[in-house]
């Protein structure tokens, strides 16, 4: 996993609540057995006017000019600003893979669905929770000024707006540590092999039917 410390980047505003994982990456792309290459199909049904299937040459497809990510001013955005309950629906990790592959390393929203939120951290994406009023303020600012950028500093847990306003955010200490250091969860867990084995031995005695 890639480390994440800080970045300053263009913000794309996706003004919808309850954006679900089917919208982030439609199911036909889940047939891939790879972890990468989902970026061109992120938000496929909103982004293109035709129906997308795996294997298509996306550069030849007709884009939907009304969809926010297709607007020239948001090209190159690495921060996604959106509304509440982002990422609801399925557990597909293809959703964060697609967002990351598209270029989003930070998401800002008032709330997220649990599984999606968790999946982001496993893939080096920082999902930030800000209250609704702050999110509303950022939406107004982003839309009002072309080329709007935010600075996100994970170490200091703060977002800085172009006018210098600082917005603090919370992040779980363990997840922050993993993200800052690009740590693989499995390696960390395997440092506790003895504890896992001890648990198993105890549990086998208590509930042997679970080990049949």
């Amino acid at each position, binding site marked *: 996993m890639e480390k994440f410390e800080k970045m300053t980047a263009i913000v794309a505003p996706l003004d919808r*609540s309850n954006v679900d994982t089917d919208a982030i990456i439609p*199911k036909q792309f889940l047939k891939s*057995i790879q972890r990468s290459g989902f970026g061109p199909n992120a938000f496929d049904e909103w982004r293109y006017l035709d129906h997308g299937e795996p294997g298509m040459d996306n550069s030849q497809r007709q884009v939907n000019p009304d969809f926010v990510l297709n607007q020239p001013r948001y090209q190159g955005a690495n921060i996604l600003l959106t509304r*509440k309950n982002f990422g609801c629906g399925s557990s597909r990790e293809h959703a964060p893979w697609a967002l990351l592959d598209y270029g989003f390393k930070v998401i800002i929203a008032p709330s997220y669905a649990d599984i999606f939120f968790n999946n982001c951290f496993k893939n080096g994406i920082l999902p930030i929770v800000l209250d609704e009023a702050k999110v509303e303020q950022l939406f107004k600012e982003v839309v009002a000024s072309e080329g709007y950028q935010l600075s996100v500093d994970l170490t200091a847990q703060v977002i800085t707006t172009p006018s210098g306003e600082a917005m603090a955010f919370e992040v779980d200490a363990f997840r922050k540590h993993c993200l800052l250091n690009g740590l693989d969860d499995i390696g960390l*867990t395997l440092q*506790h092999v003895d504890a896992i084995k001890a648990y198993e031995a105890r*549990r086998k005695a208590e509930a042997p039917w679970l080990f049949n």
Partner: protein
Amino acid sequence: MAGKTLYDKLWDAHVVRCDDDGTCLIYIDRHLVHEVTSPQAFEGLRLAGRKPWRIDSVLATPDHNVPTTGQSAGVEGIADPIARIQVATLEQNVREFGITFFPMNDVRQGIVHVVGPEEGATLPGMTVVCGDSHTSTHGAFGALAHGIGTSEVEHVLATQCLVQKKMKNMLVSVDGQVGPSVTAKDIVLAIIGRIGTAGGTGHAIEFGGEAIRALSVEGRMTVCNMAIEAGARAGMVAVDEKTIDYFQGRPYAPKGELWDQAVAAWRELVSDADASFDTVVRIDAASIQPQVTWGTSPEMVVGISDTVPDPAREPDEVKADGMRRALEYMGLDANMAITDIPVDIVFIGSCTNSRIEDLREAAVVAKGRKVAATVKQALVVPGSGLVKKQAEQEGLDKIFIEAGFEWREPGCSMCLAMNADRLEPGERCASTSNRNFEGRQGQGGRTHLVSPSMAAAAAIKGHFTDVRELK
């Protein structure tokens, strides 16, 4: 000291270790695997030179991609080459790692959430995970069941553990009795309508109350299945005699002395009378009527005798905007009667409603009637090969076929349309599945979530109809 909730008990029994900030390692008893969310996890294991920690805890079956006709041809019979590769990849992986596997032409194959309990592979008191958000289904038996992402699939394969913080406790109590023809599906849709799709976020939901106790275990599975649609990663129901009876004689369930020992432990899997919940929601069962979703989120739901809501009457602007967008996508007008909405397609299936009781419920409505001429297709897709076999023994297949339904082979099918069963743009479907998101059942497709009997009634009438008036 205050008593423990069911979730507290399940959590405590599975903690391997915790850090000071509450980040814990939770031991996983059962890991279910399907073709869509596992290839990258197996690949990760291989790249890191790791082996599965406990292969006897893993059970795999293909479900999302499988066609619902011609399954006896096996993987080679899958027409879509990309889907074929994915199912074939699962077969290679289970072979390489020595994992128990029910392939496409095995009678035990089916939707992973139907297969696990049916085999007794998921049991009360277990922690169950699967790379699929509807793993919450297995909580119906007093188990702690989570949907996980692919990185976590790899993590559980490698370590038998999940990294987690404890969630909050939420009780949804459905008090009193439901009226006739009001099913588990209606109960859970009404709950989601009340608390919203984020209502359970950060919580483990225990469903309780008289109306939940009165449900069969299969009905409780329907309710827990949709806990995730209320934002809760895990939903659960306390163990009772129905739970215990259900597992009697199932292939993977304990036998003999172990059975007695297990049953004694299972009886403890209830919330203590003095346990306290962070959030409590009470719903009056008698107020629930058969439900129909009208929008593109499961919380956009009303009773069959209601009308489509009007965004003009919604004070919250963001919400009103979402409603307008949903109405446009769904091709509906505000204030129209739900019973005036015609359907093109009917889908009875999915891990929400494809078990034998669901099929029986739909068959009661279909029996001796005909699918309306305006309905283009009505599909019945059993949840597993064993459900299909049982239904055929009971003659349900004949009832459906005579009424004009298509009787298919098991899989996820039109629930998410990864196989050939899908809606065309603009087509409207009465579906017993769990998600009505834009494009879920096919790009541009319009989904209305209903119970099996309501789906069958819509097929017969050609529009939504109150099943209570049909009987």
